[in-house]
């Protein structure tokens, strides 16, 4: 029973960052119809920006986090402006392959610049964990959960409460009509990709200090983000948030009770199962656009 409680606590903490990853990816797919194969590279970038901001710039942990998120935002805007804007209107396979190319460039660039040795990000939190009855959790992980939930809340507020969010939702439903109503659709695409990228960078910046930072860390994260997005249904933001927690639960229980070697296989088994039984995701309502 205690072990189960500990697994559930771990699930919450891992799930928060998974949800961030998934929301970023599903936002980009839903609004732009682009399968973002740079998502993993942006996750890695977020972690490296965090590392650089703490060690080289000496910004301090709590300032480094927004700096890394801002870096992801800018990088995403550049990728959209340079690679995706000229390709508007071409088929989904072409943009997907261009994104694969960009992902390779970013990942190999990171490996080239920083080398393959894993780095760890120093944190200001005490090493001793917090004991809550039978479960124990480190202060760092608690902070990661809080920050992830805050970012998810911010994203929801942005989409549901602001004029930008209104324009994004309009573009999501029908980009031609949105354009006719005076929405600058090109700007919305850039903003969407930048926001989605910043969420991936945030997830990397939060999980980087928990584990270690290395150039290939994004590969698996990207595949997991796909799993989360499939689980929730492509383009479904709430679905992605819940999907993040479901994947974390499956991984925790799979690693705890089946075999830790197959921890990372859980996401893919979930994808295959979902596509066999509910091809439009677990939370499909009516037909979605995108």
């Amino acid at each position: 029973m205690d072990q189960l409680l500990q697994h559930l606590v771990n699930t919450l903490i891992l799930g928060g960052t998974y949800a961030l990853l998934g929301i970023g990816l599903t936002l980009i797919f839903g609004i732009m119809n682009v399968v973002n194969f740079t998502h993993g590279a942006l996750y890695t970038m977020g972690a490296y920006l965090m590392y650089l901001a703490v060690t080289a710039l000496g910004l301090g942990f709590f300032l480094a986090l927004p700096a890394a998120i801002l870096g992801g935002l800018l990088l995403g805007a550049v990728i959209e402006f340079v690679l995706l804007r000229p390709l508007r209107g071409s088929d989904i396979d072409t943009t997907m392959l261009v994104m694969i190319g960009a992902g390779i460039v970013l990942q190999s660039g990171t490996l080239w610049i920083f080398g393959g040795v894993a780095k760890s990000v120093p944190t200001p939190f005490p090493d001793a964990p917090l004991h809550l009855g039978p479960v124990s959790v480190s202060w760092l992980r608690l902070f990661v959960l809080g920050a992830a939930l805050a970012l998810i809340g911010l994203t929801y507020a942005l989409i549901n409460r602001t004029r930008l969010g209104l324009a994004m939702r309009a573009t999501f439903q029908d980009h031609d009509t949105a354009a006719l109503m005076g929405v600058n659709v090109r700007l919305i695409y850039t903003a969407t990709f930048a926001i989605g990228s910043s969420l991936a960078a945030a997830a990397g910046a939060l999980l980087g200090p928990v584990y270690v930072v290395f150039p290939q860390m994004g590969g698996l994260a990207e595949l997991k983000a796909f799993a989360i997005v499939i689980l929730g249904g492509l383009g479904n933001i709430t679905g992605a948030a819940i999907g993040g927690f479901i994947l974390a639960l499956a991984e925790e229980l799979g690693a705890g009770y089946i075999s830790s070697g197959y921890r990372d296989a859980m996401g893919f088994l979930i994808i295959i199962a979902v596509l066999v039984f509910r091809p439009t995701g677990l939370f499909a309502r009516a037909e979605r656009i995108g």
Partner: protein
Amino acid sequence: MTRLLPLALLAGLALLPLGLDANPYLLNALITTGILTIGAMSLNLLLGFTGQLSLGHIAFFGIGAYVSALTSLGFEVELGFGIRVVHEPWPAALGFLLAVVAAGLCGWLIGRLSFRVRGAYFVIVTISFAEVVRLVALNWVELTQGPLALTGIPALTLGLPGLGSWTLRTKVQNYYLVLAVGTLCYLMIARLVGSRFGRAMRGLKENESLALSVGINATRTLTVAAVISAAMAGAAGSLYAHYLRIIDPDVFLFATTVTMVIMVVGGGKGTLMGPVVGGLVFGLLPVALRPVMAPEAQWIVFGLVLIAILFVMPRGLVPGLAGLLTPRRRGEAPTGSAIQPVEVRS
């Protein structure tokens, strides 16, 4: 000219080892390039002719490699419930055949599962399949030795009744084997896409609803294409295992699928010669880049080349260059895309 090009290329490749003076480094690069090119040709059958982007193609390649290696090495595993499976080593040629069959069966399974969905869903389900297979190869240590790798895989022995048999140990022998298998795959794909079945595949790619309305069974056609494609990839994997004589779970790396995709898209998807030209260009590019830059930088060049091709020649090198070489007829629009250079796009 388009008829002569494949023959000229084949003749050139057949004579190449004489010119190389058995340079082992270059021969090795040519053999691995050839094996990956066979993989790219099989991927083209799905990506180019049916329009389904499979990003898990390496799974079939790796399954072929492991099945072939395990068949010829023998193994002993405990399946649980007291069931033990013991397999004595079989000849390597049988391993090759089993690799083709096993990969084809996996292609059937994945086809049945994933052709219920299209587009982005299909892409992601194929990636997931490849990752699951990689994790099994990594974790089922009793069968696959996990990260310790399967070593001492025997070389292929080919024999004809009454003529004796040869064990292919040298690089030159393996080169000709790969060339022969590659030529065979090329001819099979050419026959296939020219047939009624090939027209059904392309019909589904161009306009699925129209194809359905004239009575083409979409799921069946796509699944058959996936089986053939997977079987060829399995054959390539088997050649790889018996040539290198050692395999580890890294044969399943996503990067290899990306290399094959670059070969197909860069050469020209949906054309017969595209993956061959793309395979040679992108397979040998690292050899050309090796003296001048670090491996990480090579991958950066790979990524940039992929992006550049999609921007400049979205249909790939073969259609793009054929468009440049073919003299324009009067009254025709002066764009390369108006010209249909390759025989299968009739």
